[in-house]
């Protein structure tokens, strides 16, 4: 038996004037999974998420969100979805407690006080509950926002770049939290620019200029790209990058830290382009498994 789908939409389309922001996107997320939503800025991630939770009306497309028609029953869907906006969108001139209390009231939660107290305790913010939300640091704001989205026990979480501008430790904690929620059966669709976050997802989808162009597990997406990558490290590697760019077989050359990644779909051509530098002293060349980022840069380069 296949797992029921939390999100099952086909042909999702949104137009802003002349611009096609989202073009016939199909997404099917099984319940309880964590899906990563990747793509460059302006590729349509936020628009897609907003359509799923009823904040934007779709120009075309059909399907269900939590078993409900996402176009007609958006009000019912809203009650079961937790949506975390890209920019902190709780009230900065309300205290932490007042923000949680407001959300609990709007959703009409029973045992409101208890629920808010519990949440404050889980967050570890009991002592700071009367502090204004605007005074919190980026990491705390994001934790508060997640807690507020979770207050009404949604079955589906839509997170729009939740970890942008958050420090590495806070990011890790945040992802541990997401995995814990997923363990409790909550479905998560999270957009991100971070590869390490993408690798923590069950599946990823990659959207570019409104088109969904890759999907699957990280390994599948990498395999589907049919990409070969060589790593070049050592003295004079910076000068080499200029020479290799545009060489036959080299589709792109990019630095990852100190290492230069040379990628292309034709392995032999790539090897030939690197051949003249094989024996340069101090330069170290080896073939490597392409990373997810290699694949994404490749996909983006291909499109331009």
């Amino acid at each position, binding site marked *: 038996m296949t797992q029921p789908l939390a999100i099952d939409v086909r042909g999702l389309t949104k137009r802003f004037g002349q611009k096609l922001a989202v073009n016939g996107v199909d997404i099917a997320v099984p319940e309880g999974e964590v899906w990563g939503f990747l793509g460059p800025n302006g590729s349509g991630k936020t628009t897609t998420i*907003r359509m799923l*939770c*009823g*904040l*934007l*009306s779709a120009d075309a497309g059909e399907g269900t969100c939590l078993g409900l028609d996402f176009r007609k029953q958006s*009000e019912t869907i*809203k*009650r079961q*979805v937790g*949506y975390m*906006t890209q*920019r*902190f*969108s*709780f*009230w*900065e001139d309300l205290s932490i407690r007042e923000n949680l209390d407001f*959300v609990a009231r*709007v*959703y009409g939660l029973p045992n409101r006080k208890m629920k808010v107290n519990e949440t404050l305790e889980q967050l570890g913010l009991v002592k700071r509950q009367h502090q204004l939300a605007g005074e919190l640091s980026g990491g705390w704001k994001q934790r508060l926002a997640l807690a507020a989205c979770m207050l009404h026990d949604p079955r589906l979480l839509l997170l729009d770049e939740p970890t942008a501008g958050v420090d590495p430790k806070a990011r890790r904690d945040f992802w541990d939290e997401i995995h814990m929620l997923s363990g409790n059966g909550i479905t998560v669709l999270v957009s991100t620019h971070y590869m390490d976050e993408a690798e923590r997802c069950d599946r990823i989808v990659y959207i570019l200029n409104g088109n969904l162009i890759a999907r699957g597990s990280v390994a599948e997406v990498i395999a589907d790209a049919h990409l070969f990558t060589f790593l070049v490290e050592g003295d004079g590697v910076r000068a080499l990058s200029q020479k290799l760019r545009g060489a036959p077989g080299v589709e792109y050359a990019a630095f990852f830290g100190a290492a230069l990644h040379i990628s292309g779909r034709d392995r032999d051509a790539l090897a030939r382009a690197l051949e003249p530098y094989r024996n340069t002293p101090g330069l170290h060349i080896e073939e490597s498994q392409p990373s997810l980022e290699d694949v994404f840069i490749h996909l983006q380069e291909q499109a331009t």
Partner: protein
Amino acid sequence: MSAILRFFRRFSAARVGAVLMKEFIQMRRDRLTFAMIIGIPVVQLFIFGYAINLNPRHLPTAIAIDDPGIFARSLTASLRTSDYFQIVKATNSPGEARRLLDEGDVTFVVEIPENFTRDLVRGAEPQLLVETDATDPGASSYALAAINQLATSALARDLSGPLAMRSATNPPFDVVVHRLYNPESITQYNVVPGLLGVILTMTMVLITSMALTRERERGTYENLLSMPATPLEVMIGKIVPYILVGYIQATLILAAARWVFGVPMLGSLTLLSLTLAVFIAANLGLGYTFSTIAQNQMQAMQMTFFYFLPSILLSGFMFPFDGMPAWARVIGEILPLTHFLRIVRGILLKGNTALEIWPNLWPLLLFMAATGAVALARFRRTLD
């Protein structure tokens, strides 16, 4: 000296130019603001330039004639041809004329008593009774000055032949003026209750015009929309607190009116507080509508002022309502402040009852319903 030199050495015209250019570009980008900066002064110049008249003419007048004689007819005829008076009602019942004055339908009642002609012919110096609504003392002063002159010259033609000697005694009758509701013509009696309406208009519209605009500017609007609150729920929730604020303001102003300015309060304060609720809600509804339109707080503020100016100038607060041309009165009749001024002056100074203020209460209710409906229709449930 060296400080000045240093100042000029540090000063860079190029940097001023950079800031200048940036401001011009930003000014041009915000089309609505730019259009308002250019358009509003022009519109207002013409509206107010033509509408405001400090020497109001065509004041609505009722005449109560209890005398069929020739002099009464002459007087009526000359009142009719006069610029100052617009006879809207001719009756033989002084009671009915007085009721029109109470309800604010007329500003003047000219009462020609029984046997006016007879007494005049006999040389008995009959009385010509003029009652005027002095709630706004300024509105009727010119017309009052005119009426003596008018009456005397109107009768001059008739007082010929054997009666010519009657016109020599100048005037041949006694013009008795009753300044009703405000017999001492105290300006505060008119202005202070009026300020109640003006201040409420200003603050209520301004506060609510920011209601949604602020949420939109701060990015919390998206969050609010993603929650299961309906537009009506949001609107009521955002408006009700300010009804309370409005009541606090009203209480302060009325207390000052009573104990500082000594404004008489003849009518029912309960009735006044009920109409206050409607008036406050009407203004909040309008402000809320503005906030569904304005993209930023700057625009919300401009809309508020665009509304506030005609409210002050065309409502009868600053200038006599009856002195304005018909088209300006039509604009004035739409404004809630116009009706509220009549109500508050009516209740406080004239002791008006619910029945008497009803003609001005239903326009307020209508305005409130209309702005509420527009605001709800404009409230977007999505970010489209």
